[in-house]
C-alpha cells in the first residue's frame, strides 16, 4: 500500500504569539516550529499500516524553506521519502488554494491512501484533506481514529460527537483525515535520524505544480480576542494566591 501523508509545520504550541506589523499574520521572528499534532497521528497510522501491510510512506508538506525541518522529522520517524512543495504564500492562500497545491503534488504519485490530520493547530480550518479528496475525485472520511486494510479497501473508525463512533467501509484509493488519540506516537530513534539524511527529499515549487492561488476568501485582519468575562487574577506567591482564591470561592462566588 502506497500512502501519502500530508503534514503541516505549525508554530510550537508554547511559542508566544505576537501579531505582525500590518495585522495580517503573526510575527514569525524567533518562532519555534513543530509538526502539527493531528498530522503526527496521520503519519503514525501510515507507518503502522505499512508495517502491517507493506508498501511505502511518502511525507508531503507545503511551506517555506523552514518546513524542511518538519519533513526530516517525518523521515526520521520512518517515512520512506518526502516531497516538499516550496511556497512562501501559504498564509494568504485560502483552504481551497492550499488543497490545490497538495492535490497537484499527490496526483502523479497515484497513492492508495492519503492521510492527513483533521485540522491544523494554527489556522484550524480542518478542510484541507476533504477538499484535496474532492479535487482528486476520491472518497473521503474525516475524524478517523483507526484504519484497517480489508480485501475491498479499508474499514475506518470515525469519531462522532459526544462519545459516539461509527465504522465506515470504503474503497481505495481514498483520503482520510485523522483525529488525535487513536494510537500512540513514536519518537524518532537515533538510527532513524541518521537514515533520514540518506532518504529522497524532492522539492517542487507551487509554480511548477501550476496550482493557482487567487483566493476566494481573504484574511483581512487579526487581533487579540476580546475577553468574555473580566477575570480576577489573584497575585502573590503560590501560597498567597491559593489562600486568596479559596477565600474568594467561599465568600464571593459561594461555590465552596
Amino acid at each position, binding site marked *: 500500500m502506497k500512502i501519502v501523508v500530508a503534514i503541516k509545520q505549525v508554530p510550537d*504550541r508554547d511559542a508566544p504569539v505576537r501579531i505582525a506589523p500590518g495585522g495580517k499574520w503573526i510575527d514569525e521572528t524567533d518562532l519555534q516550529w513543530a509538526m502539527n499534532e493531528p498530522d503526527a497521528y496521520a503519519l503514525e497510522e501510515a507507518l503502522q499500516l505499512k508495517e502491517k501491510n507493506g508498501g511505502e510512506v511518502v511525507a508531503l508538506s507545503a511551506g517555506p524553506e523552514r518546513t524542511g525541518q518538519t519533513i526530516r522529522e517525518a523521515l526520521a520517524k520512518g517515512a520512506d521519502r518526502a516531497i516538499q512543495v516550496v511556497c512562501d504564500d501559504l498564509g494568504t492562500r485560502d*483552504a*481551497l488554494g492550499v488543497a490545490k497545491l497538495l492535490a497537484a503534488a499527490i496526483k502523479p504519485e497515484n497513492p492508495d491512501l492519503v492521510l492527513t490530520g483533521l485540522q491544523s493547530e494554527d489556522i484550524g480550518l480542518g478542510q484541507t484533506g476533504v477538499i484535496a479528496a474532492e479535487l482528486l475525485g476520491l472518497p473521503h472520511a474525516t475524524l478517523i481514529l483507526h484504519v484497517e486494510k480489508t480485501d475491498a479497501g479499508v474499514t475506518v473508525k470515525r469519531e462522532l460527537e459526544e462519545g459516539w463512533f461509527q465504522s465506515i467501509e470504503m*474503497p481505495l484509493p481514498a483520503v482520510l483525515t485523522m483525529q488525535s488519540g487513536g494510537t500512540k506516537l513514536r519518537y524518532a530513534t537515533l538510527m532513524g535520524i541518521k537514515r533520514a539524511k540518506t532518504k529522497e527529499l524532492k522539492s517542487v515549487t507551487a509554480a511548477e505544480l501550476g496550482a493557482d492561488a487567487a483566493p476566494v476568501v481573504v484574511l483581512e485582519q487579526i487581533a487579540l*480576542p476580546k475577553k468574555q468575562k473580566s477575570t480576577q*487574577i*489573584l497575585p502573590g506567591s*503560590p501560597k498567597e*494566591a491559593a489562600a486568596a482564591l479559596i477565600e474568594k470561592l467561599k465568600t464571593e462566588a459561594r461555590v*465552596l
Partner: protein
Amino acid sequence: MSGILVILEERGGRIRSSSWEALAAALKLGPAQDITAVVIGAQTAALAAEAAAKGVGKVVRVEHPLLAPYTADGYCAALEQLLQNQGPTQVVFPHTYQVRDYAPALAARMGQSLIGDVVAIEDGAVFTRQLMQGRLNANYRHSGNGPCFVSTQAGAFRADAVDALAGASPATITTFTPNLDASQIRTEPGEPFREAAQTVDLGSAQRIVSVGRGIKEEQNLGLVKDLAAALGAELAASRPICDNGWLPMERQVGSSGQTVAPKLYLAVGISGAIQHLVGMKGSQCIVAINKDPDAPIFEVADYGIVGDLFEVVPALTETVKAAK
C-alpha cells in the same frame, strides 16, 4: 443570485440547537424573509414543519431515500443540485462534525472555500473566526463570485434570536428531489456505537477539577487528584490527556467528550482551545491556573492564578485541607 440558505441538521428526528444558532447567524446577513431553511434526509416532513414554525422566508425539503444514512457523497451531490437551482448569495451551516465532513468538499465543488467555525458576523459580511487554538481572532471576507459558505461555531450565536421570529405565519414548504444514484455513494457507513458504558457522569458533578497538557507527565496527575479529593470534586481532563491514555476518555470535557456545567470548574494547565471551552463555559464559576497569562482559558475564567501549577496546585490542596 439572491437569498440565504441555512442547512439545518437533525438528531433523533429533531432539529439540533446548533442549527437554530446557524439560523440566528443568518439573520445578521439578511432579513428573515430572505432566508430559506433547508432540511435534508430520507424523511423530512416533520423537520420541515419544525423549521417552518420558526418564521423564516421559506423551507425546502431535500429528500431522497439515498440521503439516509448520512454520507458525504450523498449530501454533496444533493446540495450541489439544490445550490445550482436556488443560486443563493450565502450558505450557512452549523459547524458540526457532519458539516466538517462534507461542507468543505461541497464548497470546493462550487469553486468556493468555506469560512468555517465562525464566532461573529459584522456588518458588510465580515466573518470572525479563531486562530492559534483561540489565541487570536481573524476577520475574513468572501471576495470571489458565487455563494459565500459559512459555518457557525456552537454557542457563538444565540438560538433565541430565532424564537423571536416565531408567531409570524409559518413558512411555505417545498420539496426538492435531487437526482441521486446509489453508484455515486462510495462509502458504506455503519451504525453509531459507544465504546463502553459510561461510569462517570461529569454532567451532574457540582465541582470539577480538570487537567490539561500543562501537567506534562502521567505521574504528575497525583497533584490534581489530591486537589480534587480535597475539594470533593470529580476529576476531568482536556483531550490530550485522554489521547495519551492517562485518564479514560469518559473523563474528557469538550466537543468530543462531555459537556459540563458545575458550580465550580477549576482548570489546571488547560490553555482553553475552543474544543475544550464549548464543553465547560456554561459552568457557574470558572477558575484557571496557567503559566501563560495570554492563554484563552482566561477569557472565560472568573478567577485566575498565573503561575506554575506544580507550586500552585499543592498550595491550593493544603489551603483547602487546612480550612476543614
